[in-house]
Structures are given as C-alpha cells and as structure tokens.
C-alpha cells in the first residue's frame, strides 16, 4: 500500500518534470529568436549609443566609451525632428481613426446580416498590402504631383492657391502616413465592433439614450480595446517611419526616422544614430504606457 503510494507519487513528479521540459523545448525556438533578433541587437544598440568618436580618426571610427553626452547632443540637435515625428504620427493616428472607425462600423455592424459583402469589404481594406509599402508611397507621389488631377481639381475649385503644391509638404507626409497605416487602425477596430452585442445598443435606446448618447456611452466604451490597439499599431510605426517623409516630403518635413537613416547610412555616425533610436524607443514606450493607462483599458488589452 505504502509502496504503491510512493511509486505513484514518484511517477507523478517525473511526469510534471517531463511536462515542464516539454514546455521549455516548445518555447526554445521562440526564446532563441527573441534573443538573437531582439535582446542582442538592443544590447548592441545601447552599447553603441555610448561610444565616442576617435579624434582625428577615419570617418565613422568609434571606440568604446561611456559618452552620455551623445544623448544630450542628439536631443538638443534633433528636437524639431522628434517633435515632427510625434506630431505627424499623432495627426495621422487621429485621421486614421476618423476614417477607420466609420469604415469598420459599416463592415462590422451594418453588414452583419450580409457576410459576403462583409468579406469583400474586408478584403478591400487589406488589399493595399498586396503591393509593397514603398511602391504605394511612390504612387501617392504621382497622385499628389504638381500636374496631377487632384492638384488641378483643387486649384480649379480654389481650395488650393495657384502657386501651391502638395508634394514636399507636411500635408503630403501626413496623408501618406494616414493612408499607409489605415488598415492597422481599421482591423482591430473592426474586430471589436464585430463582437459588439447589438442588444446592448438597443438597451441604451430603451433607457432613454439618443443614438449619439448610446454611441458615446455604450458603443464607444465597448470598442475601446479596438481603438487602443488600433491607435498603438498606427502611432508606433508612424512615429518611426522615414519612407513617407523621404518620398513625399522635403528637408523641412524630416522626421527622426530620416535622421537615423542618414546618421547610420550616409554620415556613418553610429553613436548618434543609436542614441536617437534608443530615445525614440523609450519615448514611444512612455507614451504607450501613459495612453493605455489613460484610456483605462489595461485589463482589456
């Protein structure tokens, strides 16, 4: 009896151990991937950001150091680009929400009884991903070019002064950002609207809430998780983007991404580029944390 108990206990422990070993084995590829492509690069980036230039050495020569001044210099020198990055990303996020929410509402709520139409519309939302990001942005360059239909129409109806242009302006950059990241906003918002229980919307109407009030007090709070993840998925890549500014903007619209790009690949100033990257990462992290806390959706994310 006792022996049987002991044996039983023994196999149980062995089983638990075997199970935890299996878990580790299953996790290993993911952990390895994370280490090689995330932890190690971030560590190298942090180290590089503290290197100092070799005085009188060849272009790009650096040596290990603890040059915290790199950070100060980066912030002081490139404050306008930081400001622009966050401003453009913010405007693009707001615009993407303004366009994406109604779009997602139509697909997720109004078309609920017509699954076929719903599917077609969803494919249309994702369709831009079928061509490359860069190509699409170049296409925008054509659309907004000085001799394009858009510009000439806007000039004809006097919405644009005769000597104005759209390319190489902040408007073009923000438009490009909004367009390129719109699906990242639309899809998460769609996912939460699709799950919205319409009986709750009816209950709102039954309890004296006008349609606007029902939207404000029922629909919006219930779809907040979608809005939060959509705006994060839009804001974070938009703040670090350099393609839109490079293709649709000019020197006056350059964002942190453009500075990092030129510091790394043209000027070969690795420490500054690394410091800028670290600051961008930290700033985005802080903003995200603040935003998630503000919107009160920690438990929903």
């Amino acid at each position: 009896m006792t022996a049987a108990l002991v044996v039983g206990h023994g196999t149980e422990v062995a089983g638990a151990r075997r199970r935890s070993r299996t878990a580790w084995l299953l996790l290993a590829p993911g952990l390895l991937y994370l280490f090689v492509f995330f932890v190690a690069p971030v560590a190298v980036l942090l180290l590089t950001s503290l290197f100092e230039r070799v005085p009188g050495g060849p272009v790009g020569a650096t040596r290990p150091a603890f040059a915290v001044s790199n950070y100060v210099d980066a912030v002081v020198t490139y404050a306008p680009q930081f400001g622009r990055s966050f401003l453009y990303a913010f405007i693009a996020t707001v615009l993407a929400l303004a366009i994406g929410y109604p779009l997602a509402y139509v697909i997720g709520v109004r078309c609920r009884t017509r699954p076929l139409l719903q599917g077609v519309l969803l494919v249309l939302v994702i369709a831009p991903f079928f061509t490359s990001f860069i190509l699409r942005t170049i296409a925008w360059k054509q659309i907004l070019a000085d001799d394009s239909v858009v510009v000439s129409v806007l000039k004809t109806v006097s919405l644009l002064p005769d000597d104005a242009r759209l390319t190489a302006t902040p408007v073009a950059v923000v438009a490009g950002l909004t367009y390129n990241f719109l699906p990242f906003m639309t899809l998460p918002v769609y996912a939460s609207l699709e799950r919205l229980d319409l009986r709750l919307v009816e209950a709102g109407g039954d309890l004296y809430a006008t349609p606007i009030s029902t939207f404000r007090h029922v629909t919006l709070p219930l779809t907040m998780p979608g809005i939060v993840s959509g705006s994060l998925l839009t804001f974070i890549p938009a703040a670090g983007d350099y393609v839109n500014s490079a293709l649709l903007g000019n020197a006056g619209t350059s964002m942190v991404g453009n500075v990092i790009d030129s510091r790394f690949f043209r000027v070969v100033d690795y420490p500054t580029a690394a410091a800028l990257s670290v600051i961008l990462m930290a700033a985005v992290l802080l903003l995200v944390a603040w935003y998630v806390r503000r919107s009160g959706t920690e438990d929903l994310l």
Partner: protein
Amino acid sequence: MSGRDLELVSVTKRFGDFTAVDDLSLTMPSGSFFALLGPSGCGKTTMLRIIAGLESPSAGRVFIGGEDITATRAHQRPVNTVFQSYALFPHLDVIENVAFGLRRRREKHVVERAMAALDLVELRHLAGRKPAQLSGGQQQRVALARALVNNPAVLLLDEPLGALDLKLRRQMQVELKRIQDEVGLTFVHVTHDQEEAMTMADTVAVMNAGRIEQMGAPQELYDLPRTPFVANFLGRSNLLAGTVTDEHGGLLGVDVAGTRVQVPADRAVARSGAVLVGVRPEKVILLGADDPAPPGATALGPGTVADVSFAGVSTEYLVDVPGAGRMSVFAQNLTGVSATPGGTVRLAWSPQHAFALVDDGAPDDGTGEAVEAAELSEAAAP
C-alpha cells in the same frame, strides 16, 4: 407612481412574407399585471419590441395613456424593458447600470434613486460589482432595478425568469409580484410558463401564431377555455369529439362514440354540429367497472387503464376508452391506489365542469394526447 394604460390597435408585423404578429388588438389597463403566454416563436418578443419602439409595426398603432406613440423612437417612449438576455452593460458596474436611464434624462439625485432601486431588489451590497461578477438571478434583479428606477408608464418583461432554476424562479415570481404591488406600474410579463402566468397576472392573454387566442383572468381562462389550443396550453384537457344531438334545460346533449355526454349550453362555443367536449383531468373521477355513477354525473366507459404515474400529491391515470380515445385523470391520493394498469374502470364527471369547443384545426402544442386520439377515432367513424 402609477402606470398608464397601453393599447394596441390592429398591430401587424411581417418579416418578409412571414407574419410574426397578426392583426393584434388589445388594451392593458393602467397598473395591471398583464401576462402574455404563448409557445416559443409565437411572436411575444416581437410584440414587446413593437411596444418598446425597437421594431416598427408593418401596420397598426400603439397608444400609451391615450397618446399615439407609433412614430416615436425607443428613447422617447415612457417604456422600459427587462430583456430576455438582461443586456446589462458589461463595462459599467451595477450602480451605473441602474443609473443609466436617470443620467440620460439628466434627473436629480441619481445615485440615491439608483440605490433605492437596488434596495427594492435587495442588491445594495453589490452596487460596486461588474455584471460579469453576478449570478444569473442577481443579474436578473439588476436588469429589473435598471428598468424600474425610471418609473416608466409601462414595464415590459421578456421571459425574465427563463434562465433561472425552478426554486429561484418561484422566489423571483413572488418578488416580482410584490414589487409590482409596491410600485403600481403597468407590467407586461411575457412567459411560456403557464403556471407562472396564472400565479402572477391579473390578466392572461394566450398567444398563438401571432394572434391572441383568448384573454381574461387566470381562473376564467382555466375554467372556460374557448379554443382547443388554450384548453391544452393552459393546463391540460381531455377533448372528446362528438356531435350535438339535443338541447334541454340549458344542457346540450352530445353524442360521443355512442355515449350521451352533457355540457351546459352557456359553456359551449357552438350549440350544434361537431364539437369537442372538454373536461379537465382533475375534474374526472374513477369508478370501478360496476360502480354506479353519482346522480346527475356524466359517465363514460368502461375503459382500460393504460398507465399509472404517481406524482406525490396526485396520481395520473391514462385510460383508453373505446371510441373516445385516451383520457387523463388526476386523482388525489386520498385512498391509495385504486386502479392498476390493465384494469377496467369507468369515468365520471359533473356536467358543470365540461365545456364544448369547435375544432379549429390549429396545431396544438402536443400536450393533449386526447385530441389526437379523438381525431383518430373521428376519422375512423363512418
């Protein structure tokens, strides 16, 4: 605090070519507890939604307190609903759920009034919880408080007790009745549970296939159903197919498979031709094969006992009577078992308890084996 009366005039609702509510007219007096009873799919929810303004009728008008509200929208109507699914707002805690309607109408003393409503359903201590943290019964009470707090002219309850277990259900029935007495609102309570409808309501309307079959006080409806559907949906009935042969001193004589059965003329829907004679199972008594029937009683049989089922307070006997079909008898367990399966018995009842209906060919809900059997024997007769 008082409700206002609710009036529906020729309300029809079609979904495509399916008619969910069919030319329905009724008046519910202010302050009454009105039960709408019917099988699932008969249009009860659709009717409530029309009253609440969540669905617009294809035809007809809705009045509250004499005012035509057909064209107004849900949020403009002095009506609140306790939904079948409760539909509590998951992102708001209990007190904010209850306060929702008051806040939308910018009322004063919102929190105090919401708390008072929670007191009424005895849930003050759970005011800070989210709906997901409540049991089914508690959610039901929050839904009730959320509707009651607005003091609507009419309160609609859509099978609010459907999801509760039997014990809680009985408890909530008593509770609801108490609350209605207390607040004096007009309650429209939808249910498919006939016992619930009869114990709670002042007026019961039996609904079938989008129409009201019969409406009245529970006792009245039970005592004198006017259609086979009502006879079997509200309690059970033995229905015997027969033909009216004569009328004497207020009593109709009906020939049922060669036996003369009597029905008071004022309890008959038709006084001639083919009728269905109905009698409730608890009104029928069992007699031994050779026992004489009590004076004045209608007697039927002999028949064979097909089944005996003991149910504690009573025993149900199923008796096959040649020509009349299978009859059901509820006997109180006063003298122990008096018949066994295979035994021969006779049945008797007082003519005052019988009623006569016209077979309208409507499908019944399957509880009345007697009807099917009667129809079979009718078809077999020359």
